[in-house]
């Protein structure tokens, strides 16, 4: 456990001292072996969040995609279709504006906006601070919509049960190979805007094949937030994961 943040991880204790300079009692030059994970502080807060979610039986999903893939649209639709059977709340991350939180609130679900300013990702501490304000009830579903960015959010654990990557068919099949870290960090991939397929040359099979090369365990749902096509399977998956986290 590292002593700056108590991340019960496998980082060995810090200070090991080797004298490298002459042995005087003043101004000795020495090397201190640190061996500390740079993301240790975020990782340990992420773990704390995860423990909280498990205790409260809150299924938390971290939605990541490039800007405009349809994260908010999918959430609006999911809330409308499921809020009768499941309590759902949402944390929205954007650099600026409260627009996405307002869109979610309009569907009837509690939502809170985090503005990251120039920051390109949410981190675990931001989630910790948002939780008492949002106050998601026990036995509920919590969606976190990350900042639209396929690079940085991959590195920052928020304490989620899973990262859900969203790619829209207007983006090109090769996105998973251009941004492999995100598709490796995700366990679910929603392919959105399939209502537009007739107008595009997007090759769905190729997209999945390229994504599976990057992450052989990735599970896909082909959906349209606009027409609703394919959302049934996504909802089934959500119900299944939700009942699973219930029985912990």
């Amino acid at each position: 456990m590292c002593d700056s943040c108590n991340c019960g991880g496998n980082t060995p204790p810090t200070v090991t001292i080797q004298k490298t300079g002459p042995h005087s009692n003043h101004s000795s030059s020495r090397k201190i072996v640190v061996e500390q994970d740079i993301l240790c502080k975020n990782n340990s807060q992420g773990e704390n969040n995860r423990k909280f979610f498990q205790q409260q039986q809150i299924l938390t999903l971290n939605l990541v995609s490039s800007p405009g893939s349809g994260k908010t649209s999918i959430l609006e639709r999911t809330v409308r279709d499921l809020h009768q059977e499941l309590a759902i709340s949402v944390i929205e991350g954007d650099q600026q504006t409260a627009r996405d939180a307002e869109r979610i609130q309009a569907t009837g679900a509690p939502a809170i906006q985090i503005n990251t300013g120039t920051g390109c990702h949410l981190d675990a501490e931001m989630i910790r601070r948002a939780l008492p304000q949002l106050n998601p009830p026990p036995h509920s579903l919590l969606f976190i919509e990350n900042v639209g960015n396929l690079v940085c959010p991959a590195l920052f654990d928020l304490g989620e049960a899973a990262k859900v990557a969203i790619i829209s068919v207007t983006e090109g099949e090769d996105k998973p190979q251009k941004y492999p870290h995100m598709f490796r960090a995700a366990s679910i991939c929603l392919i959105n805007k399939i209502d537009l397929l007739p107008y595009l040359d997007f090759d769905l099979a190729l997209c999945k094949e390229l994504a599976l090369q990057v992450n052989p365990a990735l599970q896909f749902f082909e959906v349209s937030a606009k027409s609703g096509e394919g959302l049934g399977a996504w909802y089934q998956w959500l119900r299944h994961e939700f009942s699973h986290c219930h029985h912990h």
Partner: protein
Amino acid sequence: MHEMSIAMSIIDIALSEAEKAGAQTIDEIEVEVGQLAAVMLESLRFCLEAAAKGTLTETATFTLINIPGHGHCLACQRDVAITEFPAQCDVCQGFGVSITAGTELKIRSISINGDNNGREE
């Protein structure tokens, strides 16, 4: 650009280690960056210089050590060098490769000058 967050974490950790050891100056900070860690060395170096300004780390040398990527091919049970994702075995061309090295992102050591007395427990 997450390199800025990473640079700031490096500075934070280095400063807290230096303070614990009663450092007056920091000569060097050694950082391990795996080839598969999603961090661009050039960009990290740039961010470190910016983030170090006005702190004890300002005069330190940042040594960025690139750790090569390695994996284990599950199909042929061999260790293979992996330079990028998708991780592909160069023998069987398969993608079932578990990564064994190259994702490191850590501070290895700091070299300091300063009073050794008084601060240590």
